[in-house]
């Protein structure tokens, strides 16, 4: 029950803040990417910086390198970045866009779901690499 409360609250806050920050707006995101408006970059950098501080204060051991670089890191990152620039999804954003009433986000969401399922299939059949332990 508690797990559901935490998960639900986290989802609500994430969706709400992504909406109020402006991530649901393709125009805003594009302006961030071409350095026309640094506000959203600052949001991200600030969030990382403050979180870093928070984690340091909470538990130094959280910094031991569990999430390592593996063969999927770079190609996956590139594919993701390509898709991100083309539709603004990252990939929770289509859900926020739907919350704003933007119906084409259904197509984006469908794509994200298909891409997720496709990857699982492809990795099981074609890739063999150590992407880190179960609990990373």
């Amino acid at each position, binding site marked *: 029950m508690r797990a559901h409360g935490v998960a639900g609250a986290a989802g609500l806050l994430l969706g709400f803040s992504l909406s109020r920050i402006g991530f649901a707006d393709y125009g805003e995101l594009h302006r961030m990417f071409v350095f026309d408006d640094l506000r959203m970059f600052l949001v991200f950098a600030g969030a990382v910086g403050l979180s870093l501080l928070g984690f340091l204060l909470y538990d130094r051991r959280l910094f031991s390198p569990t999430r390592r670089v593996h063969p999927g890191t770079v190609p996956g990152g590139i594919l993701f970045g390509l898709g991100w620039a083309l539709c603004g999804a990252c990939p929770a954003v289509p859900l926020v866009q739907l919350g704003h009433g933007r119906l084409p986000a259904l197509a984006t969401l469908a794509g994200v779901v298909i891409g997720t399922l496709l*990857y699982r299939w492809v*990795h*099981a059949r074609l*890739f*063999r*690499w150590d992407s880190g332990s*179960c*609990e*990373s």
Partner: protein
Amino acid sequence: MTAKTCPHNKACPLFAKFQVQSFLRIWQMNYCQADYSRCARFVLRSQGKQVPVNLLPNGREVAGLDGPGWD
């Protein structure tokens, strides 16, 4: 030649169990600290899949989930 240990040893719940009981150390000698690429858990992970806690390196499961003492 230094023995290579499976890179997942720190997070694997079975590795921890094998470490604690001498009777179970034989699993480490045959898989974790030897040819860990044969370990069913490692293979599943390499395929990008999740590993059930009761999967043994030899591919068998620790007591069927419906067996005695399990519910």
